[in-house]
């Protein structure tokens, strides 16, 4: 590269061109793209509800070293295969992996197996996604997980992605994850984002789900309160593949989680549900894109938010149904519950349909707690604060109930209940 890449925003060092040719090529095209598009501005449509001024002002340093983070107790009790990333690098690999499960640190790209080379960078588009390009250009370490053909591990794989803030400048980490679920395999993945101090985490997760394969993927975003979290999850599904995704977001001062899915095969079952819980001046943005490219696919999206204090929620959900994607069945619902007068939400559903034989529904509701319901509970002797807590809990749990695997569902329920006990019982009206 002729230009000095270190002058670009959020870049912490020169391009690493020590790796194998394929990786250097990936990094070079990514940094070139990043240089062209730069960070989104106020007029960038995809970012119009999520301002990045605070983030743009950062002069970050690369996050390094250990990143201590304790799992929420409910997840710590989960029977699991655990992989820990600290500041992007694999810190601990489980000993004794289940048969057919392969977990490969990407620290030494020269030695990675063929399936990593083939897939890394193939799902996550960098064209219009500056943060994904930034990740591709700058990631250090990273991990790739493969579930071999037909394998169905019993326990969920828990991927802990932790970042540690630096004392002086804000640290930045670009965790990189590749998950390949081969034909006929079936697995549960739980991703937990955590950290300490002030930092920016910019994780990119690429997921390939093969023919007839299934991945249930539950994400807990519980970053530190001073953190910026900008995440991209990109999923590609083959014929009759299932992706059952859930995002529970409670952390970070500013969070943007973008989940993109390419329903590249026929009869795909894609689900992306979630809950965001905002307090104080938090900003939660969940942006999703579902690309129905083939016939008989179904997608289900239920996103619920609870906002207290001066927090803000953003939901943007685009569904594209291409001309070939006949018999598509799409459902999208976004609901937000505002528990204070200063909380705000922006909801932007977007349907783009080019096939003529499809069923697509979408809806959005924003509201406060229902007075009739509150009065009914109080008329039975339940104090107002408790009545509110019961109603909010019911509202949130209706979405969390969509997590199919019971131990994961229960763990996420406990995380949400803990948040509600801290932020709702005493929240102002």
């Amino acid at each position, binding site marked *: 590269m002729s230009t000095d890449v270190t002058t670009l925003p959020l870049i912490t060092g020169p391009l690493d061109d020590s790796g194998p040719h394929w990786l250097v090529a990936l990094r070079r095209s990514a940094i070139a793209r990043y240089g062209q598009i730069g960070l989104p501005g106020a007029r960038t449509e995809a970012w119009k509800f999520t301002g990045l001024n605070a983030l743009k002002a950062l002069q970050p340093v690369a996050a390094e070293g250990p990143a201590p983070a304790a799992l929420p107790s409910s997840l710590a009790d989960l029977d699991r295969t655990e992989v820990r990333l600290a500041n992007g690098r694999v810190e601990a690999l489980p000993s004794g992996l289940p048969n057919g499960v392969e977990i490969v640190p990407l620290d030494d790209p020269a030695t990675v197996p063929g399936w990593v080379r083939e897939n890394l960078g193939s799902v996550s588009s960098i064209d219009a996604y500056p943060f994904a390009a930034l990740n591709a250009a700058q990631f250090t370490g990273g991990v790739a997980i493969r579930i071999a053909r037909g394998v169905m591990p019993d326990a969920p794989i828990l991927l802990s992605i932790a970042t540690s803030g630096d004392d002086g400048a804000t640290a930045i980490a670009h965790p990189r994850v590749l998950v390949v679920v081969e034909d006929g395999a079936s697995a549960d993945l739980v991703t937990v984002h955590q950290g300490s101090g002030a930092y920016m985490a910019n994780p990119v997760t690429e997921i390939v789900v093969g023919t007839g394969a299934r991945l249930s993927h539950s994400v807990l975003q519980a970053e530190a309160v001073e953190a910026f979290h900008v995440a991209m999850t990109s999923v590609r599904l083959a014929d009759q593949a299932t992706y059952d995704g859930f995002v529970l977001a409670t952390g970070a001062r500013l969070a943007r989680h973008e989940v993109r899915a390419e329903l590249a095969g026929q009869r795909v079952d894609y689900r992306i549900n979630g809950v965001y819980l905002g307090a104080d001046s938090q900003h939660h943005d969940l942006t999703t894109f579902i690309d129905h490219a083939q016939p008989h696919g179904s997608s289900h999206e239920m996103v619920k938010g609870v906002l207290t204090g001066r927090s803000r929620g953003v939901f943007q959900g685009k569904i594209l149904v291409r001309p070939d994607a006949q018999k598509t069945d799409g459902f999208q619902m976004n609901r937000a519950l505002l528990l204070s007068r200063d909380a705000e939400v922006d909801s932007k559903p977007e349907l783009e349909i080019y096939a003529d034989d499809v069923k697509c529904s979408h809806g959005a509701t924003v509201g406060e707690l229902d*007075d*009739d*319901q509150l*009065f*009914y*509970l*109080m*008329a*039975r*002797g*339940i*104090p*107002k604060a*408790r*009545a509110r807590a*019961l*109603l909010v*809990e*019911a*509202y949130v*749990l*209706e979405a969390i109930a969509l997590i199919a695997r019971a131990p994961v569902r229960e763990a996420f329920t406990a995380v949400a209940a803990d948040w509600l006990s801290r932020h709702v019982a005493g929240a102002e009206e």
Partner: protein
Amino acid sequence: MALLEIKDLHAEVDGKPILKGIDLTIEPGEVHAIMGPNGSGKSTLSYVLAGRDGYEVTGGSIKFDGKDLLEMEADERAVAGIFLAFQYPVELPGVGGMTFLKEALNARRKAAGEDEIDAMGFLKLVRAKAKTLEITDEMLKRAVNVGFSGGEKKRNEILQMAVLEPMLCVLDETDSGLDIDALKIVSDGVNALRAEGRSMLVITHYQRLLNHIVPDKVHVLAQGKIRRTGGKELALELEQKGYADFVEAA
């Protein structure tokens, strides 16, 4: 001492006067019926008693068991022993029926200085009361009132009443939307709760409910005031003549 003593009660909703000077005294153990045409203020009276926001008392007083009811929040009134059986019971998606009942019962016990009920004792209590109201375990497990028919909702109200054992039961048009069989089940449930220290205020448009729940006194409410008070025979008279006399008289 009277259990409930309403004196010259005035109340308005959205600035519109609805109750215009109600006087009503209910002694412990008495069953009173309030009958009246639509729009007479029957439901407003029930909400004012239960303490609903938006029902503003502009004059008069209500004493319940010696306490100033108007100083109390809705939940405080409930734990003190007032129970409103809703005309339109509210659905609470995601709130389990048993959780709801247990929260309510424990709130009442706490106010009475009693310990929380243990899980086994609670289950036994609810099952026993539910059985006589023909409420199945499956219904108990569902979210409160969600997916219930009109009759099931009304039976569920009476179940809550039976579990909470209030001192004053206010039944707001409990007969509305019930067929004959459901009316019988609900009435039997209410009658089973009749007791020496427990009073009832039965609000209804029609006389038929009073065939089953026989009142000690019947009041006619029209245009925000009690126009006439009599015994149970007054209900029969109204059934024959309608409310025309009272509407014109006002």
